């Protein structure tokens, strides 16, 4: 008998601490709730447990998760209760708090109250509550609030050993429920924040695309060039991180995305007669054209957040052997972001018709890139590019 007591004895303080820890780690509301309910069923040993959770966009509360070995298991999203349901009415109205002084509503308590001399209205409500709890096969309900808002209700089935919930268990569940509501609200806010950030990110990318389109409006030979260079650059980066088995971080990919969209932005500052000249450029015109990376830097320099992207804009015409412009950087001095754009940019230029020269076909262009690998291009990037071509992705 003594041993049995010992195994049933759970260190609730420790349980709460570990629950709190997982709440910090998990930012996905659904996963979090599932974890918590599963834990309750296991630790407190109840037939089943379920959470009715408020849905933000409606007045409904929906069974989000329901777990149990022997008891009823309601499929997620199958059942709802509306805000006029007695359970919701009871827990939303603080005037019934007297009945709920310890934060738990049990069938036992309701039956006791019904025997007392209470107002007819309250009696009706209590009977309705009993019926609702019976439907969900719950013997105890624990509400979960955030400020004054009823976030959800934890529904608990019978304990497996047939005993009543003891004070310690109930205190644990009440504390857990209040932690849970906080965690759920946090998780929901986190999700909203992520969606908001995502919206901003999309707005930013679309603004960048609009800016890039401004270049193409001016330079009629480069129609579609920006989009192609961007796609190819991202493909190279993905392949590169696969090969090196360490992935380039998301920040790098985001920067590369923006940098390749904006790599030619400086062409806005180049006179149209040079940009659209129907023939090869003379030395002076070439010199002018070679200004475009620095013009781009000047346009973007005040945007602090674009610091890394600007490296791509600035150095995408550098050459591996140090004969490029604007600074004549050599080898690995050239930032990776620029080395990638450089290959994508050159390939697209070679495979596009110009009025004064016919374009190369893809195979010829790839051959050309292989030939000048180590001279014009970083050999590592050139190799990755060739690999992508072999796989038929170009």
């Amino acid at each position, binding site marked *: 008998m003594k041993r049995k007591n010992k195994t049933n004895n759970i260190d609730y303080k420790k349980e709460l601490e570990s629950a709190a820890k997982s709440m910090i780690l998990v930012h996905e509301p659904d996963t979090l709730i599932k974890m918590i309910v599963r834990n309750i069923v296991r630790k407190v040993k109840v037939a089943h447990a379920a959470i009715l959770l408020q849905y933000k966009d409606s007045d*409904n509360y*929906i*069974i989000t998760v329901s777990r149990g070995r022997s008891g*009823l*298991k*309601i*499929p997620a*999203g*199958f*059942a*709802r*209760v*509306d805000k006029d*349901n007695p359970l919701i009415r009871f827990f939303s109205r603080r005037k019934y708090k007297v009945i709920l002084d310890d934060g738990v509503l049990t069938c036992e308590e309701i039956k006791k109250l019904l025997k007392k001399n209470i107002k007819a209205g309250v009696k009706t409500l209590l009977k309705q509550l009993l*019926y*609702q709890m019976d*439907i*969900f096969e719950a013997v105890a309900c624990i509400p979960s609030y955030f400020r004054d808002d009823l976030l959800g209700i934890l529904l608990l089935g019978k304990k497996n050993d047939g005993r009543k919930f003891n004070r310690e268990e109930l205190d644990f569940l009440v504390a857990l429920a209040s932690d849970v509501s906080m965690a759920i609200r946090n998780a929901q806010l986190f999700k909203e924040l992520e969606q908001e950030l995502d919206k901003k990110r999309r707005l930013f990318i679309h603004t960048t695309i609009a800016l890039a389109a401004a270049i193409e409006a001016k330079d009629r030979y480069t129609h579609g060039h920006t989009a192609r260079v961007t796609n190819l650059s991202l493909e190279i980066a993905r392949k590169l991180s696969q090969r090196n088995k360490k992935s380039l971080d998301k920040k790098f990919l985001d920067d590369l995305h923006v940098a390749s969209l904006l790599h030619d932005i400086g062409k806005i500052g180049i006179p149209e007669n040079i940009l659209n000249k129907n023939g090869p450029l003379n030395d002076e015109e070439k010199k002018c054209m070679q200004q475009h990376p620095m013009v781009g830097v000047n346009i973007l320099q005040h945007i602090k957040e674009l610091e890394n992207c600007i490296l791509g804009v600035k150095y995408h015409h550098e050459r591996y052997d140090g004969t490029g412009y604007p600074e004549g950087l050599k080898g690995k001095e050239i930032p990776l972001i620029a080395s990638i754009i450089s290959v994508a940019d050159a390939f697209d230029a070679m495979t596009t018709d110009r009025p004064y020269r016919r374009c190369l076909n893809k195979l010829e262009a790839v051959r050309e890139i292989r030939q000048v690998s180590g001279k014009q291009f970083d050999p590592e990037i050139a190799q990755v590019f060739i690999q992508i071509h072999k796989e038929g992705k170009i």
Partner: protein
Amino acid sequence: MAKLLIVDDEVDVREFAANFFRKRKIEVTAVASGEEAVDLIEAQKPNLILLDIKMAGIDGVETLRRIRQKDKHIKVIMVTGRKPEEGGAFEDCRKLGISGYIHKPLELDELEKIVLKEISQK
């Protein structure tokens, strides 16, 4: 004992609904497809059918149509997710003849009431 036939392709829903009504002293058969339901009705003669609209294979509307070819009077309650595009399906079901319509997520007390009411009225 009144007989209820549950038709739903989700196993969790079948298990839950079957348990729920067995506890309410109803004889329950649960099947996973419209075909099985159509095959069963002559032998089983259920008093009421709970029929899910959205199912893999033949859907609830088609199942209802085939049931009606065999039996014009058997009571059927349609169960469905509340999607606006199912407005048309609802019209089809009404023309074929149904006793009611309940949408998921549903209220368990409403489910209990509507089923108990329909199944007790012969």
